[in-house]
């Protein structure tokens, strides 16, 4: 279970509070108007923003003092999820190696992950040589290899058209099921939420409401 225990974030001119639990394995859509603090909520869970008060716990472990790199979290950002100078395969294998030299076995795993997201044979291409949807798939292949318990998605697919986005969401569900991850995803689109989420968190007027099931 992911616990946000009386979390308070100060975000420039306003603050955001959150006090709720998310069950392990839940798939949660985080919704609300622009600028309400949805991204900040995710960044705080990942450790990129420090809360002014409160604690974040996962399986009863307090994550609050941990660096982002020590948390059981993988995250996809709004953009820059792939390094443009590396091939898709090199990007994906980073999920296993964290930049150390990859073994043959790790490269094989990365190939398999690429194949699973429908990118078999694309490993040698650079991000600029594939479509936006294919970049999203490659990033998800890396998440698959990271296999961390919590997956945070900060609108990584918002630039894609709705058909392509729905394919991505189906893939997210697949990845989440396979890695048994708890997923929180920022979205603006009710239909996206319907397609993917078991629960919805509304963020508005400085409060992130507890998740309610759909």
């Amino acid at each position, binding site marked *: 279970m992911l616990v946000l225990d009386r979390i308070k974030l100060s975000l420039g001119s306003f603050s955001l509070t959150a006090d709720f639990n998310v069950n392990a394995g839940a798939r949660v859509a985080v919704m609300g108007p622009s600028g309400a603090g949805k991204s900040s909520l995710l960044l705080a869970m990942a450790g990129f923003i420090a809360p002014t008060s409160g604690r974040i716990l996962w399986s009863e472990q307090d994550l609050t003092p941990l660096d*982002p790199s020590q948390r059981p979290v993988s995250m996809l950002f709004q953009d*820059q999820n792939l390094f443009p*100078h590396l091939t898709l395969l090199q990007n994906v294998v980073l999920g296993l190696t964290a930049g150390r030299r990859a073994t043959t076995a790790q490269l094989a795993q990365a190939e398999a992950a690429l194949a699973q997201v429908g990118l078999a044979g694309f490993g040698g291409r650079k991000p600029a040589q594939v479509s936006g949807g294919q970049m999203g798939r490659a990033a998800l292949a890396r998440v698959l290899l990271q296999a961390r318990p919590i997956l945070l998605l900060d609108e990584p697919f918002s630039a894609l058209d709705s058909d392509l986005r729905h394919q991505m969401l189906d893939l997210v569900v697949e990845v989440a099921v396979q890695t048994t991850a708890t997923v929180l995803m920022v979205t603006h689109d009710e239909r996206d939420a319907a397609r993917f989420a078991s629960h919805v968190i509304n963020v508005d007027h400085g409060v992130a409401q507890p998740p309610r099931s759909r």
Partner: protein
Amino acid sequence: MASRTGEIGAITAAGGVGLLIIGSLGFLLPHADISRVSTADFAALRFTLLQAALSAAVSCLLAIPLARALFRAQFWGRAALIRLISAPFILPSLAAVMGLLAVFGRGVVLNDTLAAVGAPQISIFGLGGVVLAHVFLNLPLATRMLLNGWGSVPTERFRLAQSLSFRRREMFVHLEWPMLRALLPSIFAVIFLVCLTSFSVALILGGGPRATTVELGIYQSLRFEFDLSRAANLALMQTAICLLAVVFMAAVWRPAGFGAGMDRRVQLRGDWLDGPVIALAALFFALPLAAIAARGLAGLIDLPNGFWMAAGRSIFIAVTSAFLAVWAALMLAMARARGAGIWAELAAMLPLGTSSLALGVGAFLALRPVMPPQNAALTLAILFNAALALPFVYRLLLPACREVQAGYARLMTSLRMPYWAMLRVVFLPRLAPIIGFGLGLSAAMAVGDFGVIALFGAADQPTLPILAARLMGAYQMQAAASVTLWLILIAFALFWLFDHLGGRDAGA
């Protein structure tokens, strides 16, 4: 959040630079003797400031019409010309001086022609010659910076001005003058600083009581008079004026840029002056190079004794000091971009506050009790050249490091990359073109360096510039020209090689 491992490299680099510079300068203090500062020393100080101010002012003034003409004019070979006028950037200053001597010196074409028509001859020696050489070396920098300035005025503003039917005068008052007023102080300051420490130009074209720079005075007092306390006095004087100039530069420095709009080029009507201005500039830059080529080409194969050893030594100094400079700059720029304190920046900028020969005297005094200083000449040449290139390479790398950090810091953290992985997988490949350019620039700067080795007078192990200067001193002008031509070729080859290795298309 930033890992500690990352700071070890930066702290090592900062410590190394600090030790080298503050250590060297520290050894000056016990030898300095204020009571012995003479009128000759003040004359040197006055001349140094005067020639630097004149060089900077003339470079700025000439750069205005040249950059303006280059910005507006559309002609075949424009790109090639811009590249030609960038050449003096990496031209060894000794080579520039030789080229100018070949054009403006006594008994050559220009003065013979003037004499034939009864006009007074131009003397390239003294203040005029020193300023001429400095303008030759620095006008390209001024022109490039102003060209960027013109390019950074948003296209929309030029369009607006055109649609309002601005005439030339209004255009200048409302668009060009604000840009110039913002940029010129920075350009003046950087050229002023560079000219304060210029040595080989003053050595060959200056000299005598009326045209000696402080840097030249340091050299003379150590080499010829062996007056250690005068050398220490002058070295401290040099450091003091450099520090003041750095403070002045920091105060007026304004990075170029006037909002967005670099993409489209405006079509501006040129005027009749553009053509002659561009032609004159092309001649000014091409003639000295052509003159060296013409003189040196004949002897290019028939080389003086010791040439290959000298070339090898110069290349070794250039390459090792370039790698050292770029390594230190990268460590410091990365640390700064990743949130290290101002100390990283100060360490990178520290070498600007002094000169090669001031450091050299300090090192000489430090080593003398322990070993014959000339035995360390090569090592010191490497260290000092690396230190002197550091501020420039750091300035090149910092914005790029900031960009990588802004774009990928979270992704790198989220992937749990350790420091060395960030360096190897992200920073090095993303920065490769700038690293290549920085290596090329530092190597070209170092290969033409004349300072420390000349100061220590390691007679048995000359570098190429020393060899060329010796031949010149012995009036073997053709052999000197051949060696200089080789020096130019090597400087350009090193620059091209490194710049090319960096590749321009890394990234997408």
